[in-house]
């Protein structure tokens, strides 16, 4: 079944790589009637566009309470997934499995937590250049008050040199491909559309649960029929769930740690060793070269390479790319049971993928993105990190599974005390502190212990990104 691109919001299928200027507005709805009117006036970008001709994009998503403020009945909201309805900070259990504890616990968040005003809407704004974004932003902000919407938070973003994230590594090299949309990704990296877009068969060949509406609840016949049930209309189709997390990165602490753990015996820094340790933690060199391809040095020929496996590329034991490294555990490819190295292993892994649409925020510690300059800068002022955005249709089996079973799990794939060296929570949902990083090697492994937590959560939310027709339904109805 081909995707109905004209009914899907653009950000779900494309990262808008040519629109490097972005800003996210978190909004509160006080007057549902006015908010519906506002919604009807928005020009929301669908996924049917020519990148070269587009200079600005607006996309939109809602929290569960946001949908309620828009006038959606409790009965209909009950049709949405449990994770979405409970919210990212909704239960202690969820905080535990996501690692949202300690300094990252929701009661310390800047937005999205129990002490913050409810963020009902995320408005995602993208512009080709600074002027385009600034114009779009002031236009949008002006209209908010006249429709009774409160601006809760404006989250600005930036684009770092060499397409890097703040730790200094090239980001976004590995991106999931959607079947029928992204034709250039390899088969092992191409996933059933239903894993990201509701209303299509998922990786189990099923239609993921989503909100369905009885005909009388849609008197204007704005919604299409559900593909798997002719008797009901589909509020979920062409939509998706958005996971939004503001992740603050302690860049100086990360490089200081790598520096201290690799010093020469005389106490002096070892820049090569430092870079190597950091690369081992990530699983790629700063320029993006996968360690599986080039374990001992950066290789420009492989800087954008994503066509590798672990068992299939001869790294069964993690001697090139450590078992516990960031990229090996967030996308284990062919390395986990059943039958590591087999197609079946890849197939099972495809049930735990997400599509990332994040943007970096905050000024880099050093424009060069080099560790020496970062260390020389010392204590950096201001905050920096990643506005992590990802889409999936089953938050529990996709985003939360990756976070708990892979990222924060000290026992990942036969390890003992190693959570994700880069983004791990250092213990909460497993009763173990983590913070050890083992580098498999012959004749014997080396390891570093006592890694602090480098990434903290500053705000988060689960949102629903509706299809275009569903947006019209939300704008019109009081069902």
């Amino acid at each position, binding site marked *: 079944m081909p995707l109905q691109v004209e009914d899907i919001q653009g950000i779900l299928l494309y990262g808008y790589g040519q629109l490097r200027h972005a800003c996210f507005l978190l909004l509160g709805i006080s007057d549902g009637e006015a908010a519906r009117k506002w919604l009807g006036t928005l020009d929301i970008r669908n996924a049917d566009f020519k990148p070269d001709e587009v200079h600005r994009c607006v996309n939109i998503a809602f929290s569960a309470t946001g949908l309620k403020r828009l006038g959606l009945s409790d009965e209909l909201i009950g049709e949405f997934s449990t994770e979405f309805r409970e919210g990212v900070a909704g239960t202690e259990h969820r905080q535990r499995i996501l690692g949202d504890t300690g300094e990252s616990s929701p009661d310390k968040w800047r937005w999205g937590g129990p002490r913050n005003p409810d963020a009902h809407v995320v408005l995602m704004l993208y512009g080709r250049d600074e002027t385009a974004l600034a114009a779009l932003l002031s236009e949008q902000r002006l209209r908010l008050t006249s429709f009774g919407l409160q601006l809760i938070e404006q989250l600005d973003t930036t684009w770092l040199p060499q397409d890097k994230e703040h730790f200094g590594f090239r980001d976004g090299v590995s991106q999931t491909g959607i079947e029928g949309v992204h034709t250039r990704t390899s088969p092992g990296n191409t996933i059933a559309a239903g894993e990201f877009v509701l209303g299509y068969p998922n990786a189990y060949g099923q239609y993921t649960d989503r909100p369905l509406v009885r005909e009388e609840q849609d008197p204007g016949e704005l919604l299409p029929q559900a593909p798997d049930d002719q008797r009901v209309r589909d509020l979920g189709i062409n939509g998706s769930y958005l996971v939004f997390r503001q992740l603050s990165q302690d860049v100086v602490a990360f490089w200081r740690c790598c520096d201290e753990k690799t010093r020469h015996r005389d106490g002096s820094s070892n820049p090569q060793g430092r870079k190597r340790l950091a690369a081992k933690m990530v699983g790629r060199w700063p320029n993006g070269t996968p360690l599986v391809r080039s374990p001992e040095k950066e290789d420009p020929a492989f800087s954008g390479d994503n066509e590798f496996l672990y068992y299939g590329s001869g790294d069964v034991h993690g001697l090139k790319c450590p078992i516990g490294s960031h990229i090996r555990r967030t996308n284990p490819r062919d390395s986990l049971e*059943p039958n590591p190295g087999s197609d079946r292993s890849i197939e099972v892994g495809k049930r735990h993928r997400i599509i990332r649409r994040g943007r970096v925020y905050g000024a880099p510690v050093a424009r060069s993105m080099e560790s020496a300059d970062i260390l020389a800068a010392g204590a950096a002022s201001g905050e920096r990190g990643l506005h992590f955005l990802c889409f999936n249709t089953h938050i529990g089996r996709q985003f939360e599974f990756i976070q708990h079973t892979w990222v924060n799990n000290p026992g990942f794939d036969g390890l003992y005390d190693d959570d994700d060296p880069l983004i791990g929570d250092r213990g909460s949902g497993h009763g173990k502190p983590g913070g050890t990083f083992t580098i498999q090697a012959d004749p014997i492994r080396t390891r570093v212990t006592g890694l602090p937590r480098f990434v903290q959560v500053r705000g988060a939310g689960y949102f629903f990104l509706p299809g275009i027709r569903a947006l019209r339904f939300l704008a019109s109805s009081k069902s």
Partner: protein
Amino acid sequence: MPQQEALTVITRIRPGQVQTVKGILGTIADHRDDWNIVPFAKLPNVHFARFVVFDETADLDGNPIPAQLALMTNVDAPLDAHLRDLATICGAGLDTVFEHCEKYPGVAERTPAARFSFLRQHHTRASAFYVNRQGRTVQQILREEQLRRAINEHLDSIDLSGHSPEMVRGTIVAFIASRADLRWALHPPNPPSPMWRTTELVNMVAYAVLAILILPLLLLASPLLILLLRSHERRDIPDTSRASAEAVRRLRADEDYWMQNQVTAAGLFKPGWFRFLLATAILRLTDYAVRHIYNRGSLSGLSSIHFARWVPLDGRRRLFFSSNYDGSLESYMDDFIDKAAWGLNAIFSSGDGFPRTCFLFCGGITDEKAYKRFLPTRQIQSSVWYSSYPHLTTKNIANNEAIRRGLSGHMSADETRTWLRRFGVGNQLPESGIIARLLDRIRWDRLCHCK
């Protein structure tokens, strides 16, 4: 080393006392640090333990089933020694909990002997009992973890780069030899007793012979049996109801405090003689499979279960399943679907309301939505749960034992290199037996087609 056993004590709760018992037991989340009423930690041979209250319910004909309390443990043999430990060391605690149950000795008669015979009389043998790997005692598991930690810390303190594998192994062995508290590790663990191994062997051969004898009969009857099976599968009505959000939240609140979690689920058997015979046969086969085929740490590619049991309840009207496993319930359910669906379908499809199967092995839980909706409706909240090594996964335990075994005996250069890699990661499981490997190669999803 002794083998491992499963104790299942099932008792009726006195009328009107269910809430009192639940009050005494509390919830897993309540006492995740410590629960001192029945101090399992004082018993050196208990792997896992739990208390579960089965609420009052009714069977398919509407006959009432009274509320019951179950105590389950996984212990090192012999079972009687464990019962004696419970009756003495945990005597006062047992009194506190079980005095609300029928037939528990009166206040004046609560001697260790009386408690012992109470436990014994209420013990039900499991229809099938899965042990990740037979023969590892609690003390062995704990000591081997200590051993691995000590070696790892020692390795951190020295630089061995450039050494040959043999030299590195020699260094490690010498380090252990120098440590009086770890020197025991220079000998491999003893296997389970010859007596037990003989019984297992006899069981394996006897049932294999029996199977060969009745195979011709089965083959002859197979067209009829398959027709019967399909007609039942078409007729059975899957339960599409959903557990309340509140019930699910209560279950979640008990999960993910450690590397391990637990689950208990109970359901009524489907009615009719055909389903009764089929369920009996499948449970027999399951017992055989987990004892003799899937006994090397992997249950059809699913390696995260420490112990599991299937136990009949209420005069075989119900069956309950309980297990101790690594990771979250979400990952456990996904493992079931992705790795072991065929076997679990065969077993659980005898349960009323189970998602529709197709030729016994297919369909069923491969319907992810139906399965994840169904399980919470049959799940039962355990009140108390204890693990003596909540920080270890099945892979950790297996790897630790392999590390210990590598400290003694001769090794080839290849074996030495492989052994040394165990200090880096322990993800290489022992190879399954030949029959397990053959079974694992079957693509069940491609074998059956049903509408």
